[in-house]
């Protein structure tokens, strides 16, 4: 098992007491699986996602990674875990003032020593540049290598993030609303890239607000509502009623792809 979640909860301290984001979530993800996580805004998708990639630790319950309790990992082990998990965020989250090539090279940081990173910051090694260029070629951005990240369009930035992921070469890919800021044609292209990567024996967990796309692309769907798992079924078994129930009362969640910055989400979701 890649992930085993056993009543995982996450609460954030705030001035008015703890704000619960995830109440108690349990499910498992096996190697090579492709899972979509859906649910209305505020269901806890992003928190779950940050728990899965090791950015946060659960405040209750137990999250196991390859059978080991994440809470018991030393910082070094936690870093090793993160290195094996590739993350695609809702917004590409590139370093704005770095070039496309530099941002792609960043994918390999987890495998590098500080000395190698410093050396790369000044003048990257030939082999690393070649690998990064191959990754950029795969997403069709080789010609943009010297452009600054903040010069690119949203779709291009998302493709650079994927190139960074290719550079990282993880065994698990976590994608948080990877299509949210893209128009449908671009979203299809990005989806193809992601699924192509996942095809090579990698595990893919993706949060999505677009239910249609989730059902079409992923064999398994985990639905969250109010910090709990509403259902966890193969996508062909998802019924209209179940979806209506899931999004009931949610203010047109599927139609509100407006992303607040993750910083605010910490408080609101």
């Amino acid at each position: 098992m890649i992930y085993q979640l056993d009543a995982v909860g996450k609460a954030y301290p705030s001035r008015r007491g703890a704000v619960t984001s995830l109440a108690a979530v349990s499910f498992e993800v096996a190697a090579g699986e492709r899972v979509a996580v859906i649910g209305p805004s505020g269901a806890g998708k992003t928190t779950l996602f940050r728990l899965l990639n090791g950015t946060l630790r659960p405040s209750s319950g137990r999250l196991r990674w390859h059978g080991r309790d994440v809470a018991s990992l030393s910082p070094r082990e936690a870093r090793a875990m993160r290195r094996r998990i590739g993350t695609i965020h809702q917004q590409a989250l590139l370093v704005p003032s770095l070039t496309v090539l530099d941002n792609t090279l960043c994918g390999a940081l987890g495998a590098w020593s500080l000395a190698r990173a410093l050396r790369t910051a000044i003048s990257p090694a030939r082999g690393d540049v070649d690998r990064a260029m191959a990754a950029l070629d795969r997403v069709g951005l080789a010609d943009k290598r010297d452009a600054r990240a903040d010069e690119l369009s949203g779709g291009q930035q998302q493709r650079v993030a994927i190139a960074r992921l290719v550079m990282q070469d993880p065994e698990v890919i976590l994608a948080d609303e990877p299509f949210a800021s893209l128009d449908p044609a671009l979203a299809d292209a990005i989806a193809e890239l992601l699924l192509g990567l996942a095809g090579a024996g990698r595990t893919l967990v993706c949060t999505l607000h677009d239910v249609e796309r989730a059902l079409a692309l992923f064999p398994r769907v985990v639905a969250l509502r109010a910090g709990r798992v509403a259902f966890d079924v193969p996508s062909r078994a998802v019924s209209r009623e179940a979806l209506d129930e899931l999004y009931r009362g949610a203010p047109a969640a599927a139609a509100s792809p407006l992303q607040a910055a993750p910083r605010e989400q910490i408080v609101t979701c």
Partner: protein
Amino acid sequence: MGLAAVVVVASGAVAGVRLAPLFDPANHAAVRGFARGLWPPDVSLEFLRVVAAATLRTAAIAIAGTALSLIVALPLAFLATATLFRRGPLVEGERRAPSGMVLAAASVAARAALGFLRAVPDLVWALLFVAGFGLGAVPGVLALAVSYGGMLGRILADLFETVDPRPLEALRSTGATRAQILVFGIWPQARTSAIAYVLYSFECCVRSAMVLGLVGAGGLGYEISQIATLIAALLAMVWLTDATSLALRRLLRANAPPGWYVQRRLRTDVPAAPRGAIAAGLAAIVIAAGAAIGLFDRGVLDPAALGHMARLVRDLFPPDLAPDHLRTLIEPVAQTLGTSVIGTLLGVAIGAALGVPAAAPHDEDDRARGAAHLVRHAVRRLSRATLSLLRAIPDVLWVLIFLLAVGLGPFAGTLALGVHTGGVLGKLYADTLEEVSPLPLRGLRATGATPLQILVWGAWPEARRMLVSYTLLRWEMNLRTSTVLGIAGGGGLGIALYNDVQLRFYPQAATMILVVYGLVTATGWLGDAVLRRLESASLATARR
């Protein structure tokens, strides 16, 4: 608010604020007489040769001092960056772990260490290194490195904390270490502001070395007409540093997206700089400068050096904490506090009045020619030039001028402090405003906001963290080094410390260092409180 008013009024009383002498024609005549004496400057070949040699030497000292101060500042700044070690999403997962707590404690200690580096007066640092390395440029450079390192480290940590944290989280999720996040996530975002400050710090080194080396100690060495020549040389160095700062920042932003104030001219004609070549060039310059002042001489690594330095440190202990001695410190502390408050407020007023017009606008349609554009351009240049002049005239000279204008006493020192502080803060304000991201500003402009509204609603929220930080650090500096007050007969901690050190009353000097450290820490707390207030206030506005 009420409390602030009380503080200002009390400070004004201590600072001896009296407006009448400012309007006394006799004093005007004295100042005019002094100014006339500055003209014509001494441009004899012999003296120019002296100035040229001193300028080169000053440049070498300042380059070596700045490079060493970076070596001191960078590791401490890295460790002191709260968003890497103490709070925020990067730390959240590890805060409870023992290693996380150790790192958090180390981070707090690093911040305290930076404060300590600043709290020990450069005079004491210099004596420590003189004991270790003998007389000459080396102890001077080391003293510069340590005390400017304390300031640089504090500012770098503040800059590192203000970058957008989201890309950092993305880097961390690839398994990057904190140091790697610094190199690839934080530094690229902070570098233009950081370079602006490092070069400002270099300018400070130039000023210290040049003013002290050229104007001299006893003072009989130079005629007043020579002073004008020296100020011209200093002004040239300040201007050159400013220009380098601007050019470097432009180079780093060579292909930034539209909106950055510099992109128009440079977008196409500056090639992406080869980083390796720049790094090698910089290293060569630093090594050459170090060699020129004897930093690598064999004698520098004398094993006895540590013993001599330890002896001096032992002489500082135990600090004199006798009640009688502590009582004698009350007056200087009050004087220093009062004058620093008024001097800094004056500096903020001057800095804001000149710094805002000195900041290049982010306008894209700035291309439009015409009278309005020309006027704006002229105002900007004029403001920058005025700020450079305020900084280039050494504060001792300001004291001399204000002594003539308002007479002996704390007020003359306060005015000198205020004018010099204004020159410094105006420059830092302008640089900070230029570094604000243009994108939100463009949105505001699209809504038809006036330039003032754009400043208040667009630039201020983004820039305030650093604006407050610079202001507080300058206030802290005025608390620490207001020796100018002593010159004007205004008392204060600076002169008390100088006298103690000259008389080798080291335990008393040590007490003073403790007091200054207390003041430095207190201003730090005050600064954090102000920032928290500002941030929660703006959150409240946003919610409404």
